[in-house]
């Protein structure tokens, strides 16, 4: 009989290790961030442009498919916007783009996350940055 305790513990350790070893979102001062995991490289893009006291936030998924994606923007951990989209275009290069406005709070940096999930395949793409 297999003892479940060590197996569970091993699974947790391996899972945690996998999470820790996964490359995080590339965060830079340029206001553009890309996530490479679990998406294919360059599949997700997050861009933040300051406009007066606001941010114009753009999230892009280069999905190359006709699937429905559910997406959401988080701002300092709080959901700002969410919705569903499908890519436009034909074949390679098909993508969708979501543009929203956020408040640029004075003082501390704003933590912004763009996350999209393929409702058909379960693929998750995520990008984040501090601005």
């Amino acid at each position, binding site marked *: 009989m297999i003892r479940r305790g060590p197996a569970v513990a091993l699974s947790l350790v391996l899972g945690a290790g996998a999470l820790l070893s996964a490359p995080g979102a590339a965060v830079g001062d340029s206001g553009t961030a890309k996530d490479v995991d679990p998406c294919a490289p360059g599949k997700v893009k997050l861009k933040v442009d300051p406009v007066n006291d606001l941010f114009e936030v753009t999230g892009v998924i280069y999905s190359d498919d006709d699937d429905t994606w559910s997406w959401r923007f988080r701002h300092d951990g709080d959901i700002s916007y969410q919705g569903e989209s499908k890519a436009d275009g034909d074949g390679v290069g098909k993508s969708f783009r979501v543009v929203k406005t956020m*408040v640029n709070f004075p003082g501390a940096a704003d933590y912004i996350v763009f996350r999209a999930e393929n409702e058909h395949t379960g693929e998750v793409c995520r990008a984040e940055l501090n601005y």
Partner: protein
Amino acid sequence: MRLLHSPVTQFLFMGLLTVAGIVLGTGYLAGRAADAEAKVEARGATQILARSVAQPIVSDALIKGRAGIMDRFTTRVNTRLVVGDVEHVVIWTRSGRVVYSDVIALIGRHPKLAGDQLRVLDNGGTGSAAPGEAEDQAVAKYVDTSNLLQAYTRIHTPKGKALLFETYSSLNEVENRRQAIYASFRWITIGPLLLLIVAVTLLLRVLTGRLTKASHERERLLHAAIDASDGERRRIARDLHDGVVQDLAGTTFSISAMARDPALDGGHRSSLQSASGSLRGSLKSLRSLLAEIHPPDLHAEGLAAALADLIAPAAGAGIAASVSVEGAETVSDERAALVWRVAQEAARNAMRHSAASTLAVTVRGDGQHLALEVVDDGVGFEPGSEHKSDSFGLRGLRSLVDEADGTLEVRSSVGDGTTVRMEVDAR
């Protein structure tokens, strides 16, 4: 200068001044009406925005300042609240904390609410403040509100918490409304006035022309009457001079000669000498009367003698009169006649009313200017209280002197005598 004295010019000036006053007045009133209307409209618009847009989307989470709620609220505010004339929006709690504003720097701050804002927050209704007179100065610290109209009203969160919803609206629409109000009144008020001024000016011009024409005609008739009177007086004076005066002079001469006859006794001689003296006196008076009835044809060289004849009756009234003429040798005949006429009127007044003991008539000329002074040491009079007939006489003199572009001055006071001074160009 003559143009300025024209009644038409004066009327036009006053009329345009009145129109300018009306334009400024109506502009001011239109501005006030537009401001008042703008305030009412701003309050109404704010109330509509508050009830139909702000209140449905405001939430209790917004008060907590959660970023996601702020982001969504901002999107709605930018598309549905900060539109048209509304340039800024502020939402306050009663404690004076700014829950939300499109002026992001204000969010979370605690500027205090003013009295009227608290009144609206507690009791409902609306409030407003003119540009630069905002109830609170919170927004003014971050954006220029000098040209923005403030209006506020009360809204509630879904859980019933009262918040103050405040808008700042541009005055562009107010200015447009002011112009619209003013434009609608402008031609209604100014147009008829301008037309009236034009019509009255034309009418005035016609009437003035008629008056001027009538005045010229009256003047012509007056001159004709004067000429006729002058001719008649001249004829009477000539007849008297050639008849009565000559006869009287001959009689005086004969009686004087008879009085010198050594054959006469003393009584008859004395009577004849007395009669001769009386006749000479009468002759002198008659000559003065002749001079008054019709002045002699005056020339510069005869001016002194004519003036002397003029004041000859003064001796009979117990007045020591004197004449002094210097520098008047080259004056024109017209100027000599003018001097004589002014002196005649002044001396006549002095002899009739002044009770003076001395009367001095002085004429001085320097080739360019001619001055006449008639001075007495009589009782004088209060200026402005001249006897009517004398007043007419002085008025006539002034008219004569004015025509000659000269000046006539009458100085007098009670007890200090009277001085009549005329200055005129010598040519």
